[in-house]
């Protein structure tokens, strides 16, 4: 018996640098060694004590061999200084211990907080063959200048190789260390919600995959209802971006969003990215940059790849649930961080029933110069995974003991994914004009089996033979080929005594997609109904103009216009699933896609729809400051999300979701001695005319009504030599425009904290070599999320930690996720389902959840070999 209710409502950096190498007297070396293991204060004291030493060197000392760099890491031009576009030089005094490790970095010549920190960060990663006296390794101290060339300036030609300097017995001559850094320049900031994140030491915080790096940006929540190989579901500032449908994602400039994916138009899976190869991340929370294209609804995220450490690194990790991870990274010595290779193999039984997974990833990138003014880059990725998924559980079944917390209803759930991509990039820098082009091609495939509702949706159709509920398992297959290009031309000149910039650019892609979705019978796993079969050709051409205009050195206006044109051509191979007058002589029976003979008029069960749409998207940001370390900004912009091919209608102007966003914010940046502070405060609002809301019956997000969200965020990052802390708090109120009801599943309050403590371990040495250690912590707290029908989820709170120790080329890291071993519901839903094929079906919406992982340990041993230039 049941009761029914109402209807449902980122250059070169150190281009030429001299290292004035001096060694310390034995007594000082010993003293330095004794202090090198101390914490921050200890390191500073040691470095300063060493600084007064060289001039006091007695002349009767034995012959000295200076330290030689083994691993050279280039400094990255600070993204925040790109707008100013200036050159700078930072000079550091670097203390090197008898093992060749950098144990102290002292600032001798400053060029401002950003450049100083960039130089420090790079210097800390350098490794040396230690200085030798009488053949014995000793501590030493060198002077290491880093020069930062403005992003658009012409690079000086490489200096010819120098003949080896003759060794002098007591004092060494300066040595030139030259490294050229190539890279993709960061974009001028678009306000307080433009987070150009340097991962840096925060990479030590445990993360399951590269997607979780997004959590460094405020307001991000990641969940996953589909298993280890399934793309993460992303929530950002009041949006349920699902698997990226509302967040434009790119890696190394190559788009990740899959246009036309049947599981969700714009589906984005970042599992192909090896986290150790991510050096930077720009998250722009809102559509405020004309470079942002399709799917930039809640914003965009750009992953920058690189490998700072040269040489060959191999890591093997093993841990809970029979998890094994093998990682190989290599960066040819003498090349910049933009040339690297990496491969990863992962296998795990998973933390509960039906959660096993296997994945393999390979990534590689080469870059070099084209003459004096240009550079090129080639990149490729390959990725494949196979996994099983536990899917959702009903909370009432768990409470009654009918199923366990980490159990599953349907062991067939899971899937497999492949992705292969190639990209080529060319860029030239002239006196006033820089221009570049990137071409890419990628192929992806995805099979996904999910069952959200059990036995509920297989309703009897008149033309079907009589049947019972056969099961609701979705068997989705999506194959896509994407080819595209993007490019820009950027001019800069001076006006009003200020540097002015204008950029014109394009982004074009074509997507060719074949997709099917079946429902499979529980008893036999054979498909019994074809729900969707669609072949689509989608094209997207975006043109933009972006200006960076400065009236004074404290007032900038940035923005412009983007025009987007879409064309769609989709063949729906299953357009007819019921007919008004089925043939008596040839009844349709249980066939899904029905041709029809309607009173003598025959029609095929297919329908083709072709249409097009254009849209103009203005975006502007006003930046005022800095004053007293504070910079204020206000931004306004429109964004767009194209429509799923399944919603196309012939010659009807393609509907798309249109987004209007606005915000005002303040950014704070200041260096207080050894402490660097950066903070943000933002008030924001967004309106979307067609939002996407999760539908358990479709197994994905489907079009819904318009929504509006308003909120605020606060973010802080504090960095010192041995400390890196990041925290953010975001609050947002997201409602439907028509009913005023809260948008379900979207978190209203998200708190995230990341922190690392790293440096030489005090008094701990092994064979005369100091031990380096680190500790890292990641905290997530999410308030009770609204669910359909007035329900609220549980609070989500997790603590992850890591401890690591490194000695010479070896490193041992222990990561622990869900340190407190709390049982928590990662995703929560409220809808009707019936997972009991026997007895009366459940029809009333009930709480469902996907289980969060229990305490998970991973022990990783790493070794780095080679690295000589």
């Amino acid at each position, binding site marked *: *018996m049941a*009761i*029914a*209710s109402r209807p449902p409502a980122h250059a070169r950096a150190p281009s030429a640098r001299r290292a004035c190498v001096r060694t310390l007297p034995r007594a000082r070396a010993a003293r330095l060694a004794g202090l090198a293991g101390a914490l921050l204060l200890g390191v500073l004291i040691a470095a300063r004590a060493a600084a007064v030493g060289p001039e006091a060197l007695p002349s009767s000392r034995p012959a000295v061999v200076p330290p030689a760099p083994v691993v050279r890491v280039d400094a990255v031009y600070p993204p925040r200084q790109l707008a100013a576009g200036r050159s700078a030089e930072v000079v550091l005094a670097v203390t090197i211990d008898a093992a060749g490790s950098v144990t102290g970095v002292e600032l001798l010549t400053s060029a401002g907080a950003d450049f100083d920190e960039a130089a420090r960060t790079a210097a800390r990663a350098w490794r040396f063959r230690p200085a030798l006296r009488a053949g014995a390794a000793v501590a030493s101290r060198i002077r290491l200048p880093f020069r930062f060339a403005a992003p658009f300036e012409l690079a000086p030609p490489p200096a010819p190789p120098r003949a080896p300097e003759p060794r002098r017995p007591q004092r060494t001559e300066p040595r030139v260390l030259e490294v050229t850094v190539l890279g993709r320049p960061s974009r001028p900031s678009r306000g307080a919600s433009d987070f150009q994140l340097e991962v840096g030491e925060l990479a030590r915080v445990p993360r399951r995959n590269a997607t979780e790096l997004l959590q460094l940006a405020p307001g991000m929540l990641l969940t996953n209802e589909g298993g280890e190989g399934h793309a993460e579901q992303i929530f950002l500032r009041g949006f349920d971006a699902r698997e990226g449908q509302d967040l434009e994602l790119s890696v190394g400039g190559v788009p990740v969003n899959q246009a036309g994916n049947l599981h969700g138009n714009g589906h984005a899976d970042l599992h192909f990215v090896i986290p150790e190869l991510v050096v930077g991340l720009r998250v722009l929370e809102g559509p405020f940059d004309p470079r942002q294209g399709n799917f930039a609804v809640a914003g965009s995220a750009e992953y920058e790849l690189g490998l700072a450490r040269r040489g060959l690194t191999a890591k093997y990790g093993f841990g809970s649930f029979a998890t094994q991870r093998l990682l190989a990274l290599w960066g040819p010595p003498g090349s910049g961080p933009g040339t690297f290779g990496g491969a990863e193999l992962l296998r795990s039984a998973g933390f509960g029933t039906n959660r096993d997974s296997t994945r393999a990833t390979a990534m590689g990138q080469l870059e070099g110069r084209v003459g004096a003014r240009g550079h090129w880059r080639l990149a490729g990725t390959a990725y494949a995974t196979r996994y099983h998924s536990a899917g959702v559980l009903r909370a009432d079944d768990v409470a009654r003991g009918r199923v366990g917390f980490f159990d599953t209803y349907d062991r067939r759930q899971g899937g497999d994914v492949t992705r292969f991509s190639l990209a080529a990039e060319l860029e030239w820098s002239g006196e006033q004009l820089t221009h570049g082009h990137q071409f890419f091609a990628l192929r992806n495939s995805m099979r996904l089996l999910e069952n959200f509702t059990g036995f509920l949706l297989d309703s009897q159709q*008149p033309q079907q033979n009589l049947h019972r509920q056969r099961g609701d398992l979705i068997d989705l297959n999506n194959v896509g080929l994407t080819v595209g290009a993007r490019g820009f031309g950027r001019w800069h000149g001076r006006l009003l005594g200020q540097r002015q910039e204008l950029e014109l650019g394009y982004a074009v892609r074509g997507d060719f997609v074949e997709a099917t979705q079946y429902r499979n019978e529980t008893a036999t796993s054979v498909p019994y109904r074809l729900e969707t079969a669609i072949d689509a050709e989608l094209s997207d051409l975006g043109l933009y103009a972006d200006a960076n205009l400065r009236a004074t050195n404290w007032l900038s206006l940035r923005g412009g216009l983007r025009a987007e044109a879409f064309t769609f051509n989709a063949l729906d191979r299953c357009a007819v699933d019921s007919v008004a007058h089925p043939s*008596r002589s040839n*009844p349709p029976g249980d066939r899904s896609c029905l041709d029809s003979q309607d009173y003598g008029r025959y029609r095929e069960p297919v329908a083709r729809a072709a249409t097009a749409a254009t849209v103009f998207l203005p975006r502007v940001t006003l930046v005022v400051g800095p004053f007293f370390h504070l910079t204020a900004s206000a931004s306004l912009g429109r964004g767009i999300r194209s429509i799923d091919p399944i919603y196309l209608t012939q010659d009807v102007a393609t509907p798309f979701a249109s987004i209007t966003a606005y915000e005002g914010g303040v950014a704070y940046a200041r260096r207080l001695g050894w402490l660097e502070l950066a903070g943000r405060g933002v008030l924001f609002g967004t309106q979307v005319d067609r939002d996407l809301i999760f539908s358990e019956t479709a197994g994905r997000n489907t079009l819904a009504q318009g929504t509006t969200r308003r909120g605020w965020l606060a973010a802080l990052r504090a960095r010192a030599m041995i400390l890196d802390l990041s925290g953010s708090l975001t609050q947002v109120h997201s409602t439907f425009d028509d009913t005023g009801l809260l948008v379900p599943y979207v978190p209203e309050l998200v708190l995230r904290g990341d922190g690392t403590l790293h440096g030489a371990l005090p008094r701990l040495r092994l064979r005369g070599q100091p031990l380096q250690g680190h500790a890292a912590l990641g905290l997530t707290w999410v308030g009770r999320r609204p669910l359909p029908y*007035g329900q609220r989820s549980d609070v989500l709170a997790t603590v992850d930690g890591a401890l690591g120790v490194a000695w010479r080329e070896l490193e041992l890291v222990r990561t622990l996720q869900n340190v407190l071993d709390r049982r928590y519901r990662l995703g929560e839903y409220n809808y009707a389902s019936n997972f009991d094929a026997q007895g009366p079906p459940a029809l*009333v919406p009930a709480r469902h959840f996907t289980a969060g992982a229990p305490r998970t340990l991973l022990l990783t041993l790493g070794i780095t070999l080679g690295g000589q230039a």
Partner: protein
Amino acid sequence: MLPGIYVGQVRSALALDVLDGSPQPFTAAGEGLAEPARAAEVWLFGDEINAIDDPTVILDVAGVASREGRVFPFDGRLTIGRNRSLPPGDPALPGVNPLCKQRIVSPIPIELTLVEGGSLLLRVDPRPWFTNVDFSQLERVTDEPPLYQFRDDSTGEPERALYEGFRARLGVYSFEWRNVR
């Protein structure tokens, strides 16, 4: 099933003595949402709502009917299985008459809002079951004592009338909600 959202449900079986005129509570707890309900359903089945056959006795009646001085002792048992299946009028539409349609009495108008901890009560008025039954057409199965019997199918007029009366959406089934104080 009805369009809209099901806001409450009791999935346990309920055996009712319909001669007790008081509203009767369900013996097991149900589940629901605190949302207003506008329509209700009664599902009359044994094992599975879509079963092609079902021997579960849904209705067991016995009594004495009288009219114009004539007395009709009667009994009858009613199941909803193959005996109630309706052949499709169009061979191209074999699924047009699934048995689940016959096993669900819907929609029954109601006006109530479920509240946590309250009780749903069901009252069944048997009188409309027999309103259109012509007992004189029942088959007399024994003479001593005399007994008339409803056959468990819908081939006869009285049987069809009882079956239709039993599944009437108006006048037979009514619901009440009792809040816990």
